[in-house]
C-alpha cells in the first residue's frame, strides 16, 4: 500500500464526490418544485431507450472481432437472448439462458 490511510481516505472522498456530482447535478439544475423546461422533459423522456442502447454497446466495447474468438460467443448469446425473449417474454428467463449459454461458450467451447 503506497498511500497513507489519510491519503487513501481523501482519494475515496474525491472519487465519491465526483460520482455524486454527476448524479445530483440534474436534480439541482431542475428542482422538483417547478416544472423543467419542455425541452428537458422531451430529452428526459427520449433518453432511456437511447441510453439502454448505449449501455449494450458499452458492455461489448472490449470484444475484438479481428482476434479469436472473434466475438462469436457474444453474438450467439445475444441471438439466444433475443430469441428467448421474443418467444417467452420473461426477463429472468432470457437473462439466465443467455448468461448460461455464454458461460458454456467461453469456458467450454472457445476456451
Amino acid at each position, binding site marked *: 500500500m503506497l498511500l497513507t490511510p489519510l491519503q487513501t481516505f481523501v482519494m475515496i472522498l474525491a*472519487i465519491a464526490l465526483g460520482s455524486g456530482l454527476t448524479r445530483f447535478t440534474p436534480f439541482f439544475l431542475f428542482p422538483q418544485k417547478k416544472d423543467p423546461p419542455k425541452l428537458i422533459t422531451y430529452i428526459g423522456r427520449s433518453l432511456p431507450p437511447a441510453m439502454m442502447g448505449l449501455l449494450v454497446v458499452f458492455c461489448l466495447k472490449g470484444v475484438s472481432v479481428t482476434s479469436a474468438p472473434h466475438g462469436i460467443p457474444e453474438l450467439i448469446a445475444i441471438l439466444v437472448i433475443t430469441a428467448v425473449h421474443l418467444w417467452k417474454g420473461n426477463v429472468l428467463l432470457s437473462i439466465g439462458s443467455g448468461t448460461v449459454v455464454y458461460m458454456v461458450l467461453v469456458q467450454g467451447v472457445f476456451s
Partner: protein
Amino acid sequence: MDKKQEYKKALYAAFPHSIPVLTGFLVLGAAYGVLMQKGGYGTLWSVMMSALAFCGSMQFVAITLLTTVFDPIQAFLLSIMVNARHLFYGLAMLEKYKGMGKARAFLIYTLCDETFSIVSSITPPENVDKKHFYLSLSLLNYAYWVLGTFIGSVLGRFITFSTKGLDFVLTALFLVLFLEQMKKRENRISGIIGLVSAGLGLLLFGAENMVIPSMIFILIILLVGRKKLCC
C-alpha cells in the same frame, strides 16, 4: 396496513427484478474486492470505497490511482468523466423521482446503470407504493455491490469454481431491458439513435473513450430531430 408491512410488500415486489443485478454485482463486486486486496488494500478500504463512491467502473479505474502518486484532484476529475453518463440518467429520472420525500436523496445517490435501466423499463405493480418500490430496488442493488465487495475481499482466495463469463449477466440485463423498451413503438427511434451513437463513439474514439462522445451524439441527434421525433 402499517408501514413495515408496506415496505415488506415492496421489497418482495422489487426482489425478482433485482436478481440479475444480484448475480452480476456479487461477481463483479467480488472481483473488485480481490483486485483491491492484490493492490494492498484490505476489506475496510474496499468496502468503504464501494459504500461511499458506489460507481463500479470508476472503482476499477481507481485501483491504479490508489497505487501511484497521491493526486485527489485527478481522481475527482476522472471520476466525473467516467461517471458522466449519470447526468443523463438524472435527466431521465426527473419525473419518476418526483415527490419521493426523504427517500429522494438516497435514490439519487445510488442511481447506477442497473437501477436506472430497471426503473426506466418497468412499471411498479399497482398494489405497491411507487416510492417504496423504487427505494427497495435501489437499496437491494446498493447492498449487493457492497456485499459483493466484502465477500471478494474476505473470501476471494477461496473461490475456486470458475465464474468466467458470469459477468455477462449484466450485458444480458441491459440487452433484455433494451428489448423491453423496443416493444413500445414510440421508443424505437430513440433506441436506434442510442445504438448508432454508441457505435459511432466506439469506432471514432475507441473503447476507452467512447462514452462521452456517444452521449454528445445522442444529445445532438435528439435536439436536431426534435420536431420530427416529438409532438
